[in-house]
């Protein structure tokens, strides 16, 4: 199974397979054979090459022997979708590369916005995503309404 991984510094695709009772994992060319045993809803013990680790999972983090790490894992397909289409036809256009549902429109026509200010909340891939203004300026046009679906590559908002 291919999984995209991101840590504070690294970003790569890893591979994980189950072989009998253990997991075979590829991380940037390094291979790990891991024996994992859950201890509770949050805790587990991991034995990798004889070394034993106490692992704790919370909603956003993993702790190894008590030390905190932020590791993000996602389906590579989703990741690709998220960053595939690099449209740059209009510097002032807020465009979605994925189909989704407009959750919230945060600006109205005529509003003054700063570059980087969130202008639309889009729900796509089961996630909420804030889309930011690509540049500072005045909102010329809002092409979408809340709670309506949009197509990939749609221009949601235009900024002048």
């Amino acid at each position, binding site marked *: 199974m291919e999984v995209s991984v991101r840590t504070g510094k690294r970003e790569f695709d*890893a591979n994980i397979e189950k072989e009998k009772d253990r997991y075979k994992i590829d991380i940037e060319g390094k291979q790990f054979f891991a024996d994992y045993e859950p201890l509770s809803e949050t805790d587990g013990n991991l034995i990798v090459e004889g070394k034993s680790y106490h692992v704790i999972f919370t909603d956003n983090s993993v702790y190894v022997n008590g030390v905190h790490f932020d590791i993000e*894992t*996602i389906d590579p397909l989703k990741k690709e979708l998220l960053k595939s289409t690099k449209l740059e036809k209009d510097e002032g256009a807020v465009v979605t590369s994925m189909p989704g549902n407009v959750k919230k429109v945060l600006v109205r026509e005529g509003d003054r916005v700063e570059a980087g200010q969130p202008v639309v909340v889009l729900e796509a891939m089961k996630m909420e*995503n804030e*889309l930011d203004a690509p540049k500072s300026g005045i909102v010329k046009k809002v092409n979408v309404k809340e709670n309506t679906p949009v197509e990939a590559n749609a221009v949601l908002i235009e900024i002048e």
Partner: protein
Amino acid sequence: MFDKVLIANRGEIAVRVIRTLKEMGIKSVAVFSDIDRKSFHVNMADEAYPLGGKTSAESYLVMDKIIEVAKKSDAQAIHPGYGFLSENEKFAKMCEDNGIVFIGPPPSAISSMGDKVTARRIMEKAGVPIIPGLEKEGLTEEEGLKFAKRVGFPVMIKASAGGGGKGMRKVLNESEFSKAFRQAKSEALSSFGDDRVYIEKFLEEPHHIEIQILGDKHGNVIYLGERECSVQRRHQKVIEESPSPFIDDDMRKKMGETAVRAAQAVGYFNAGTVEFLVDKHKNFYFLEMNTRLQVEHPVTEWVTGVDLVEYQLRVAAGEKLDIKQEDVVLRGHSIECRIYAEDPEKNFMPSPGKIERLITPSGPGVRDDSGVFEGAEVSLYYDPMISKLTVFHRNRKLAISRMLRALDEYVVAGIKTNIEFHKRVLTHPDFVKGKYDTTFIDNNIDYLLERENVNEDIAIVASLIRYYNSSFAGKVKEGKKTSSKWKDYAKNCWII
């Protein structure tokens, strides 16, 4: 001895006091704010009564309410812990007026030691060395500057009624003096309602070393060794140890006897702490006296074998001290690490939230004084210290190793803590050698904030297994558990 005692405090110190009360067969009465209904000290106490309110000012600082609960519950005495009302002369008197024993010193000692100008004057008279300084009613800027030039810069301007860094200014040279003087005065006024300030010589590379004393109502005062508290961040102690690696037996005796003299000068009884600044030439100067139990008291308990809370109670009940000075022997080495809910990487910002997972260390020579439990919410309303981890071993080197072992066992998940920061301090070559002063953290902050991330690959392996298993269990549907951080990522990837 009392049958029932009210603890006018919260968190770990309330739990700490309750433990000794239980051992003495005394019923404990907790009080709590609305925020603290679910807190550990409420659960531990025999009785618990609401004070209402959220902030300290609305709850733990409301004297009337606390006295009312004490009366309602028939508590014969009130233990104030530290902070809150523990050094409030008015509250101590109010207890007295209501026939309740205040577990602390006489109100007069609180007020003498509470005002820095008064304290300096009394100490000077008692032959306790004080930092060269100028304090007088109606001190003018001109007088201050003249004094500063005489003793030499840098100098400190401090609020007479103050504490905790408020109204305090370090002045490096003449040109800064005027502005600093005015700022200190106005800060003193807004913080303490009293704009009096005084000026002191600033000591370079100073150690903060304090002497634990214990006095009874019959005039007996003893000292129980010292605590080295120089690992500080913005005047906030982080790690303490006893004995201090900086002083020897002779100096300990000299400082101890001086501390006893200081206490006797104000007719002190109760446990108390005389804080000294010690310069690099081992001159020591009276800094202030804390007329209450100190946060870091467990290190003294470890090395002397004395339960300080027990003796606070016995003294308050009128008992004579049954420990003589010659009985006090320091039998090894103890270190305390204060566990804060804070994020060292984000400038030590408090990190409130739910403690999702909590594993506390145990085994030989380890003591954890915690104010929280797994599932507890750490709120922003009060102090972010969630626990005090202390260890004991026969010498300093072994005590450091033991503390590192205990910190390795300590797990707090869900909020950020300074546990990793502590490990960096304890392995810093200067700390290991015992060569550090109050500038240690500031001077080494980059080193102390570094992280090694040795197990990052293992964290990735674990995350992949979690992802793999939850995929097959159909739990990734929500995309929440395993990829919530991809929100930010996705956001950055939008083409806009």
